[in-house]
């Protein structure tokens, strides 16, 4: 790293270059010494990656190999097979995850779209429209994040259970529950984005005679696309990874239960069937991982909007 003495000898341009490469963090790092710091970061990175990597490798090993030796032995004894995946996607009904995978998709798509659309509309009401008591209601919506899912569960469940609608549309209660539970955070995040859209833009459109619907559809939505994308990923992952709502609102029914519930049951019943568990776990994380890597940039932006800007 550069030292203080370089200031006197370098050109102003070079100095600026050096300066832009400094941050409060990098000066701490240079003190810990680069090599030690990097080694430490590397150890953390390995610790964080290894468990998932080991699961993936194991899921590709034959049953007998998984149960008798560690996955790291593939170097000396490479054996790979797709049997585990075949068994868990096409095998006996109790462990056939293909059905649950479909359930999870059927649950997750409306449960991502509905809160998203409703939250965009609500954000418009909270950031563009002006009305009495607006700020209080907004703080109230934000505060609803305190209500733990656990608290809303049983009463909400009672609203649905036993009704004919619940019998005919078994997924409805799951969709509604996820939509409701996702709303406070969604409204909060999207409102933050929306209040950063310059007022002038909206005023100009209003003066040109555009109604609120036109402003909403033609001005707001296009500007909000990145934010909408980031929230959509967030909500999708959240719904896909949920267990609590899936367990309670599916009533234990195989036809509606999500993948996570099936997997959780499997770890209880067949805890030692590592060939099924590893393949099953990997199937459950493959879609989130693809979404994560493909859209990582948006996902991160969504996180930051909610947590750093207040």
């Amino acid at each position, binding site marked *: 790293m550069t030292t*203080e003495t370089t200031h006197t000898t370098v050109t102003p341009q070079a100095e600026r270059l050096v300066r832009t490469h*400094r*941050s*409060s*963090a990098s*000066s*701490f*790092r240079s*003190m*810990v010494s680069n090599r030690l710091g990097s080694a*430490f970061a590397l150890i953390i*990175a390995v610790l*964080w*990656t290894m*468990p*998932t990597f*080991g699961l993936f490798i194991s899921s590709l090993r034959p049953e007998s190999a998984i149960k008798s*030796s560690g*996955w*790291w032995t593939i170097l000396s004894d490479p054996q790979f097979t797709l049997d585990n995946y075949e068994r868990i996607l096409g095998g006996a009904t109790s462990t056939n995850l293909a059905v649950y995978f*479909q359930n999870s998709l*059927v649950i997750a798509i*409306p449960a991502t779209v*509905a809160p998203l659309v*409703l939250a965009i*509309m*609500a954000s*418009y*009401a*909270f950031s563009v429209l002006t009305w009495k008591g607006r700020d209080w209601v907004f703080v109230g919506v934000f505060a609803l994040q*305190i*209500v*733990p899912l*656990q*608290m*809303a569960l*049983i*009463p*909400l469940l009672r609203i649905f259970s036993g009704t004919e609608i619940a019998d005919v*549309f078994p997924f409805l209660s799951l969709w509604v529950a996820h*939509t409701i*539970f996702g*709303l406070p955070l969604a*409204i909060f995040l999207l409102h933050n984005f929306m209040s950063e859209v310059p007022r002038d833009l909206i005023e100009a459109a209003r003066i040109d005679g555009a*109604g609120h619907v*036109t402003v909403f559809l033609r001005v707001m939505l296009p500007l909000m696309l990145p934010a909408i994308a980031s929230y959509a990923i967030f909500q999708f992952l959240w719904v896909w990874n949920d267990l*609590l709502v899936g*367990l309670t609102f599916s009533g234990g029914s195989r036809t509606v239960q999500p993948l*996570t519930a099936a*997997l*959780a049951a499997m*770890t209880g019943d067949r805890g030692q069937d*590592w060939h099924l*568990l590893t393949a099953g*776990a990997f199937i459950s*994380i493959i879609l*989130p991982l693809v979404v994560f890597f493909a859209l*990582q940039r948006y996902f*991160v932006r969504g996180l930051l909007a909610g*947590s750093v800007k207040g």
Partner: protein
Amino acid sequence: MGFLLYSKNGQLILAILAFAALLAVLLLLARLADRAKGRGGTPVMVAVFGGPALLLLAVGLIYPALRTFWMSVMDERSETFVGLANYAYLIEDSAGLIALRNTMLWVVLVPLLSTGIGLVYAVLIDRSRFEKVAKSLLFLPMAISFVGAGIIWKFVYEYRGAAQEQIGILNAVITGLGFEPIRFLQDSPLNTLFLIAVLVWIEAGFSMVVLSAAIKAVPEDIVEAARLDGVSGWQMFWRITIPSIRPSLVVVLTTISIATLKIFDITRTMTGSQFNTQVLANEMYDWSFTFGDNGIGSAMAVVIFVLVIPLVAYNIRQMARNRAVRG
């Protein structure tokens, strides 16, 4: 028609169509109100844009929360009033106490450890050549469900007797070094710590991403000024970096604490909440849905709620302050 009603994909399509129709009607209403332009325009507009969400929140969160309060002072079937008996049970019952103790342990350790690790990592990789890759490696577990993470770590912690070949990597390392294998998930009280490690593994990426952004936002002139004053790296960290990112630190700590209070999937998948690893959120599930006692279950939900309140109240104050600053 039959396809739409009797198959999963059909119901999915039907739901999306119904939702789209509802939106079309709402926007049409708003457009009519726009045309009318009278004084009545705004209430209609607020009702159209904000109404559906607020209605759902009232039915789905406010009413259920009030009802849960009510159920927590009623008996198991919510028929007779029992006062605070359900809460008293929580304190008297040894299982309830263990759940309470464990929840406290979780809610203290997880935010501190994941924020600490996230911060150190963010600092160490800041402006290094591999920053992007390094970030996604730590951030990756965020995309994995608690159930998935539970299985991943159950496999890492897998225990076999000393005579057998270990298939869990941790015990393989431990026996490789000549020690006895450890029953990570069965031996209380350490097993709770090993479960906590799983949530730290998941949440550290979150704190790292947020804190890394905050570190990059520290104004350069402050850093430069401090440097000219001869501030050392260590002092820079404590006197400049930490105070500058304090708001982000608070947000990360509270967000993770709230998530931790509600955690229930990890103990459920990894130990089935046996071996003294029970936590409040999972015990609430057991009481309400396995044992069918809504009174005690609701009381536990209320306790979780009460524990979350100070955290969110603090955040709301912070939010109000930010608003005031922004004007």
